[in-house]
């Protein structure tokens, strides 16, 4: 065996750069395609697509504020995508990110408000842990039901989303309501000291963005770990996993816990970086977008960073487009829907395109 052979890349490298590149090109093409579809709808609704898209571009990248806003939006999307990339590789279809994010927020805010007398850093760390814990526990409800009672997680997690929404509604009106808040449904503000440091002055871009990037990097380590391999095997074939002596329920719990924790952290980041208190509607729609970002990035860290950024700019820019090119608000959803479906079909579509 020559040294050249020995040092060749390990079996199925986690970042297959060639594949990644292809992925990006195809994804980009599908996005363009969906913008074309959106353009047609714009024409139908009597708007000028070019103007609209110009304001979309400006809205996402035009100024420092815009650009940082895009990164702000990308932060939770990336964290959720990372979480999804783990659970999906285990064929554990956790679509409960919304609920787990909410529970992450609830736990971390509770710690911020009710644990006192700690120095700032330990306190912030504790809030972080609480957020992860909240997400993990909520996710583990579905995990346990799956591991020991074979309850389909697609359904349990989506039901748990609704339950979490009402739980939050209850808390911000009852037990956790701000006494000085004239009965408006929100909790007290967290101590200023716990607000996450800004990365760029006078913008909302904050430390949670770094946390998201770190998480994306750490997932690489996860896939190189024996835990990751275990997850992969159980995902590929429950039967084989059983035959090679893996503990399937425990692996499912591990996956549910880890992915829940990551999503819980996303909730922590939203509160401690942006809202500074518990309010409603903090997670609406993030679950779905996170899943899309994950798949769009091919469940692969680098890909997910790129796609998180891409989708964030689509959302932030889209909102700006609604404001400044007064485009009907639902159009952005339509474009998003198209992006998702086209990105999913990209392999097929572009295989065809290139082969013909």
């Amino acid at each position, binding site marked *: 065996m020559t040294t050249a052979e020995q040092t060749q890349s390990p079996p199925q490298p986690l970042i297959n750069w060639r594949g990644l590149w292809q992925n990006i090109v195809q994804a980009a093409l599908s996005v363009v395609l969906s913008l074309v579809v959106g353009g047609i709808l714009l024409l139908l609704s009597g708007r000028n697509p070019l103007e609209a898209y110009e304001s979309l571009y400006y809205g996402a990248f035009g100024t420092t504020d815009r650009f940082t806003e895009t990164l702000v939006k990308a932060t939770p999307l990336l964290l959720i995508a990372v979480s999804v990339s783990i659970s999906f590789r285990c064929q554990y279809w956790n679509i409960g990110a919304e609920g787990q994010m909410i529970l992450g927020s609830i736990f971390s805010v509770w710690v911020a408000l009710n644990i006192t007398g700690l120095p700032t850093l330990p306190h912030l760390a504790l809030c972080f842990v609480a957020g992860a814990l909240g997400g993990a526990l909520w996710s583990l409800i579905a995990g346990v039901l799956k591991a020991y009672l074979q309850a389909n997680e697609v359904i349990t997690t989506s039901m748990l989303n609704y339950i979490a929404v009402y739980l939050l509604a209850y808390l911000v009106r009852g037990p956790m309501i701000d006494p000085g808040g004239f009965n408006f449904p929100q909790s007290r503000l967290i101590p200023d000291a716990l607000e996450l440091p800004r990365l760029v002055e006078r913008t909302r871009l904050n430390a949670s963005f770094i946390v998201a990037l770190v998480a994306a990097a750490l997932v690489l380590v996860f896939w190189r770990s024996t835990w990751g*391999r275990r997850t992969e095997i159980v995902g590929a074939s429950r039967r084989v996993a059983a035959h090679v002596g893996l503990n399937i329920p425990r692996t499912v719990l591990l996956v549910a816990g880890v992915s829940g924790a990551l999503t819980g952290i996303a909730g922590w980041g939203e509160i401690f970086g942006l809202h500074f208190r518990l309010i409603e509607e903090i997670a609406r729609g993030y679950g779905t977008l996170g899943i899309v970002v994950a798949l769009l990035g091919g469940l692969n860290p680098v890909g997910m960073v790129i796609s998180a950024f891409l989708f964030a700019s689509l959302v932030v820019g889209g909102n700006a487009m609604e404001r400044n090119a007064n485009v009907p608000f639902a159009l952005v959803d339509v474009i998003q829907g198209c992006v998702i479906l086209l990105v999913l079909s990209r392999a097929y579509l572009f295989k065809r395109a290139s082969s013909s």
Partner: protein
Amino acid sequence: MITVEMRGITKRFPGVVANDAVDLALRSGEVHGLLGENGAGKTTLMNVLFGLYQPDEGEILVKGEPVTIHSPADAIDLGIGMVHQHFKLVQPFTVTENIILGLDGWGFFDMAEAERRVGEVAAQYGLDIDPGVRVQELSVGAQQRVEILSSLYRGADVLILDEPTAVLTPQETEALTVVLRGMAEKGKTIVFISHKLEEVLKVTDRVTVLRGGRVVFGAMTRDTDKNTLAREMIGRDLASLRADQQAQVLALAGSEAEAHAGEHGTPAGVGECLIDVRDLHVIDDRGLPAVRGLSLEVYAGEILGIAGVDGNGQRELVEAITRVRPIESGQVVIAGEDATGWRARDYIKHNAAYISDDRHRDGLILDFDLGRNATLKVFDRSPFSRVGLLDFRAIVRFTRELITGFDVRAPGPSLPAGKLSGGNQQKLILARELSQNPRVIVANKPTRGLDIGAAAYVHQKLMEERERGAGILLISSDLDEILLLSDRILVIFNGQSMGVLNSADAATQTLGLMMAGTRLADLTTQEAAS
């Protein structure tokens, strides 16, 4: 007259030419044997004829007419039927439902009437099948008959059988032979793929041998013989093989006499008892009792063979011992330790190996690369994992060793296991299981679907392990194999042991009777009586 003619068929897969300008002519009323090593291209060629794969080059003529076969639907219309080695039946459906599936449009149907008609056709071809039972309750042999019937029911004139006997017992093979000859008499054309030369010589009228995707030999069966065929398949003269391999090759290919040429060293009971099963009760997937009060011992340095018609509890027995399946009652002791409460993980930890009979389902992850497959059981031990992190270098190195050491025909560790031919997939599993020098080996049909070369190789490996002092439990529905390798033979019937005898004094007839449900004890008393 020629019913089907394949001309210059070439089929390429990424990295392999599975079929290389293959010419094949099939005549009505003949049983045509198709031979070749694993990966020679037999299955692929037939998949092309059945419309599952599209050829890259070449043409197909049916009754002299050039045809293009886009899908099985086209093949069926042209009167071509295929029974795959991995049956393609809907398990929860009844026999009849499986057979009428896709026939006569979409509308309402009368089940009773359908079952009657299926029964008729079955009788017509002397196939013993109950149209009403669920397929999942049938033995492998019976399921195969359902597949055959399903083709005939669709009016197939050309019937392709991919390794039909790989999973059958002598009795079942006998029965099948009769059926096939009967069909040939009725003017049908049958393609018979097999690795067992003995059978091929017995059943077929004409043989074609593939090697590396090319046709290397064709002849009327009566004009050829075992050695010729073996030579053509392996591509070397038998003489070039080592003596013991020769013996095994021939043995595999045939008669007991030669089988016992594979001599046995250490008698049973010498070494310590490595597998001790006591009054074991196990239920199958449907919750029905599958193993009913069975006991056995396997000693160090011996091979205990378990003979029996498929579906008599072999799989459940094996899975209970290897701790993949829960135990209802009774006890399993591995190397002196009570394993009844173990999980599969503990079984593996105690340096015990398991070769499942269903490699696609239990043994391998087809779209994982060879490296991952090779380390499925050891990835979390050093040197493959350090402080919880995988060492890919070590994994690659290890995998290369296995590939070369066990002659797995593969370009490298990063090839998906699914791209290997069945035979090579089996070698990979074997390599993985034996690489840790196990003390206990449970092997369920270890040579299923292997060509004689590969099978001989597997046998040789098992023998080596035996010499090394491992205790081996060998399950096979192939009596030749059992007789060839075992020191002692336990016959299983209906989840119970019919008795154990030394293979030296085991005659096929006796075994056949026991496999049919007569206890050894009763047999001996009968002999005494007479």
